[in-house]
């Protein structure tokens, strides 16, 4: 017996020994049910991870395209916006409040996007 086993460890015999060590079947034991319970709805599951950045890029291109195709309107819009902001005297606390509000809005939007992405990732 020992000789036979020992012989299995000759150069080619290691292959046989490794193949003889194939794992035993694993009993399901509720695993399939746990997996099925963890699956996200297919509509969410099929949303690809790259969709959000792609949509953002497309919107950016669309806005740039509109701005380039309507230069007069774009110039008026920018000029008027600049005039409104510069004509109105802004104090430091107001500026800080505006920056704070913008930051809160940005982080809220980011948090919502991340939460949605995590739901998609399952």
């Amino acid at each position, binding site marked *: *017996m*020992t000789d036979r*086993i*020992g012989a299995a*460890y*000759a*150069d080619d015999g*290691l*292959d046989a*020994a*490794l*193949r*003889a*060590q*194939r*794992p*035993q*079947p*694993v*009993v*399901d034991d509720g*695993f*399939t049910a*746990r*997996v*099925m319970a*963890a*699956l*996200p*709805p*297919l*509509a969410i*599951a*099929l949303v690809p991870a790259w969709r959000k950045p792609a949509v953002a890029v497309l919107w950016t291109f669309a806005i740039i395209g509109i701005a380039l195709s309507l230069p007069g309107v774009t110039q008026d819009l920018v000029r008027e916006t600049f005039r409104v902001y510069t004509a109105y005297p802004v104090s430091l606390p107001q500026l800080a409040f505006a920056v704070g509000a913008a930051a809160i809005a940005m982080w809220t939007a980011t948090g919502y996007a991340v939460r949605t992405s995590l739901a998609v990732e*399952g």
Partner: protein
Amino acid sequence: MLAHDDRAAFTDLVRRHQSSVRACLRRLCAGNDALADDLAQETFVLAWRKLASFRQEARFSTWLYRIATNCWLAEARKRKEVLFGDHDGGDDDSEDDAMTLAVGATGDPSDATSLRMDLMRARETLSAGERAAIVQCYDNDLSHEEAAYVLGMPVGTVKTHILRAKKKLKLAMAGWE
């Protein structure tokens, strides 16, 4: 199947493949069965999400092994383990461990059970890359090409891992010769 959100069909797929995927991950996780089962669950959830991208370039089981291996790699990265590098696991350390095993095996090589246990212990001394290559080629019975697909590495690297692993295992099991 996807068009109709057929969970029943996917249930059959999970039931059919859960054993091989879990066994594969248990070998990769070197005995941490709880972690292996968590990763197996993650594997099937990812498979569900990516079913539409499965183009039948490989067998479905091979495709599942690839996802499972990626889950295992991601988990290992979280744990900051070094994987698949030229010196993953540290050849010198592993060979020291292998020598220790070889000494242990010279005790009383009397039956196949203890031999099997020694071989399992010897496998635990392998580096992550070597272990993964052995698991795919021997436990999962994949060809070198299929193992390369699963592990995301060139075929030559798979062969190198197998050769190194076998060298270490022979050294570790020297007491049985």
